[in-house]
């Protein structure tokens, strides 16, 4: 490990300094632990688990093999490899956010449907139990 970080000279491989490497690694590991704890408590649906574990793994790989990042940067025409790193992170976050907005849309639609169903049920129940307002049509009230 140490050797790997030490080998990462500022510019040659990945363009990140040893300190940056250590910092990113620690942060990523903390994130991993956090995700795993949440999953263990059954607080996270598996689709999100997959998402976050995949994201964490990607970061770990990029940090452990700085050459990969350097090569990717050259491929994309980015001269400062850490910028590639940040760009990937931002890209992933955008996709995640789009996914979230989709999930929120669906949840909201379902909540709306439930609210309508509850309202219709309540109307039925009050009509049957004859406990709605006395001025209601007697035909309906007496049907209970």
């Amino acid at each position, binding site marked *: 490990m140490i050797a790997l970080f030490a080998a990462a000279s500022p510019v040659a491989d990945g363009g990140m300094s040893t300190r940056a490497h250590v910092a990113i690694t620690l942060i990523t590991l903390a994130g991993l632990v956090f995700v795993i704890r949440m999953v263990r408590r059954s607080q996270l649906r598996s689709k999100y688990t997959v998402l976050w574990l995949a994201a964490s793994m990607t970061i770990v790989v990029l940090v452990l093999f700085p050459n990969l990042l350097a090569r990717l940067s050259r491929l994309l025409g980015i001269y400062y490899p850490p910028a590639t790193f940040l760009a990937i992170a931002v890209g992933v976050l955008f996709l995640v956010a789009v996914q979230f907005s989709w999930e929120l849309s669906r949840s909201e639609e379902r909540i*709306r449907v439930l*609210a309508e169903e509850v309202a*219709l049920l*309540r*109307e039925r129940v009050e*009509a049957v139990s004859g406990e709605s307002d006395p*001025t*209601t*049509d007697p035909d*309906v009230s007496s049907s209970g």
Partner: protein
Amino acid sequence: MVRRSEKAINTLVIIPAYNEELALPDVLGSLAAREDLDVVVVDDGSSDRTSRVAAEGGATVVTLPFNLGIGGALRCGFRYAVRSGYERAVQFDADGQHDVAALRAILAPLDDGADLVIGSRVTDGAGAYAVGRARGSAMGMLRRVVKLLSGRTIMDTSSGFRAFSRPMLEYFARTYPYEYMESVEALLSAMNAGFEVIEVPVVMHSRTAGEASTVRFRLVYHYLRVMLMLVVKMRRRRPREAT
């Protein structure tokens, strides 16, 4: 699933109401004279006594547990109409804007096969309804958007005075849109799905409580949003299967 009263009433008046305890009694009073109509008030999570006032006015009351907006309240009303077995329904405003006398005109085309009848404020022959300048130009814009996307000219695209056939009710019970300006979106969606849309001129009263609340900026945003959504969405709809 048929639940309505024994008398052969097959027309339901749907009144979405949000904090309308003041206007509602008069509206329900004017509707009570019509023995051939059932009335359901959908209380859209009001914080006032709307539900109680509606029940006292003789209407069936469906109370939403929180505010869903006019589109959500309407969809709930459509669902009620479908489940209770009504053959047709009319959307009616809680604030006294619509006239009971106009019900005949708006319901008649349903018998001739129309699925959606729009009671229009601005067609020639309509009555005394005065349209403000900002509102007028907004209506013109919507008219052009609808024309562009459906090929048809509907004069009053956002009118809230509409009548629905049973197939239309079944379609809207599942799909009625609920975002701001849902009436225009619903209109286009109905036309795109192959429903028969007809417009008739009706007299309308000007609103008792003026709602000039839509600030210019928000209005512009919503128009742009509606147009964007319409353009993006409207191409995909499959033609409706024959009823």
